[in-house]
């Protein structure tokens, strides 16, 4: 047995942990396989699910008894990946000598940099034309699509979370991964791993889940409205640049706590619109791709068995679902309202695109309309509320982060 412990410490570690954790560990290894497989098959978002699945598999397989960096006289179950529990500067420096992902985790997760880098990349691939070309319609649809972000907060309080945790969970309703990551890092560091993982898992199934909600709530005759009578106003690069600089400045002035998010997003947009090709390549191909890879992989590596057996995990899974369900319902209600106001010229499905998650919800709206009427081409109209959804989500996240700290 002594020899076995030295040669195969990972295998032996199953007997060194509580039974429920050992079972959770095996289940998680299979879940990791599932993430990679469904990511490969395009059922789940491959960009995130493949690295996350690999991380989940490997971190749960690679557990073994090792010296505790916080208290070296003790031993604990850990991996050679990273230690999220280190707090002091000394512990961070020591951890960086031991764990290969610790430098990335310490320098990009703890301060929210990874969320800002993803947001910068999103800004660099965001096409503002549809939004600025029709701002009233786009913003009008994005407001009701925040219903989940609004109602999940009191529901989370009712389920026993404190206000900071509830606010971080509520941001899942905004359907924007970097925003959830930023809010949970700022407000509920103890829950940021389960909140972020639940959020990204749900966001990756939005594309296959929302069509059921649409079919349940919108009759065929509304789904097939082709919107041929609507036009999109052309917008100049100068207008988009001016909008990005002015809006970024005003929002940073109003909510300094969330200024890093606004700055990152609008910097991305400005890089795109100023057409400096080398910066565009850097923001999209390098920053967005690299930060998405490490975001997925590190989140997967943080999803060890002890996180899953956390008693609050089941509540988070329910609340994540409730948040996105309510936002979807709110978006469709907004869609019905504009459909009625336009006397049936606007397809109500573009309302669900207000639930951010660029560009999945806009694509879902277009796909569902196209299934009923092949001539319905609503994607350009759906992209407006989709981008407006990013802005309303950033604003509501900023308000939550600012106001909840004053409670």
């Amino acid at each position: 047995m002594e020899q076995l412990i030295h040669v195969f410490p990972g295998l032996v570690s199953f007997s060194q942990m509580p039974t429920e954790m050992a079972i959770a560990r095996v289940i998680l290894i299979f879940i990791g396989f599932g993430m990679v497989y469904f990511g490969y098959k395009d059922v789940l978002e491959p960009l995130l699910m493949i690295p996350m699945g690999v991380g989940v598999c490997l971190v749960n397989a690679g557990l073994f008894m090792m010296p505790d960096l916080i208290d070296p006289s003790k031993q604990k179950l850990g991996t050679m990946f990273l230690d999220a529990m280190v707090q002091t500067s000394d512990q961070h420096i020591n951890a960086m000598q031991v764990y290969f992902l610790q430098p990335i985790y310490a320098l990009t997760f703890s301060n929210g940099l990874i969320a800002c880098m993803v947001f910068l990349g999103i800004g660099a691939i965001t096409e503002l034309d549809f939004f600025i070309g029709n701002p009233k319609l786009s913003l009008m649809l994005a407001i009701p699509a925040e219903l989940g972000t609004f109602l999940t907060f009191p529901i989370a309080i009712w389920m026993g979370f404190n206000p900071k945790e509830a606010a971080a969970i509520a941001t899942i309703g905004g359907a924007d991964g970097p925003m959830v990551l930023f809010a949970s890092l700022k407000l509920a560091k103890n829950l940021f791993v389960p909140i972020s993982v639940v959020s990204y898992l749900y966001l990756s199934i939005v594309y296959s889940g929302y069509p059921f909600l649409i079919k349940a709530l919108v009759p065929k005759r509304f789904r097939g409205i082709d919107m041929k009578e609507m036009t999109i106003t052309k917008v100049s690069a100068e207008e988009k640049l001016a909008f990005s600089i002015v809006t970024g400045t005003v929002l940073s002035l109003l909510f300094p706590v969330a200024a890093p998010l606004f700055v990152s997003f609008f910097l991305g947009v400005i890089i795109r619109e100023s057409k400096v090709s080398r910066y565009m390549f850097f923001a999209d191909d390098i920053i967005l791709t690299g930060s998405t890879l490490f975001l997925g992989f590190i989140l997967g590596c943080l999803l060890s068995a002890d996180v899953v057996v956390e008693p609050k995990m089941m509540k988070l899974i329910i609340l994540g679902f409730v948040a996105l369900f309510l936002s979807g319902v709110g978006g469709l209600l907004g869609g019905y309202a504009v459909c009625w106001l336009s006397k049936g010229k606007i397809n109500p499905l573009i309302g669900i695109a207000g639930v951010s998650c660029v560009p999945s919800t806009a694509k879902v709206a277009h796909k569902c309309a196209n299934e009923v009427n092949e001539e319905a081409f609503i994607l350009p109209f759906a992209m407006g509320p989709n981008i407006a959804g990013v802005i309303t989500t950033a604003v509501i996240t900023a308000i939550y982060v600012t106001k909840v700290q004053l409670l």
Partner: protein
Amino acid sequence: MGVWDAFKFALNVYMLMTAITILVWFMIVIIGKFTKKG
């Protein structure tokens, strides 16, 4: 914090978001007046 207080707080946040969103709309309209069209 009670559930009713939480609801009022979230409603307050939501209304503030709506107000800021309207401000963003105004900014787009004003910027549109001072920049050339595409």
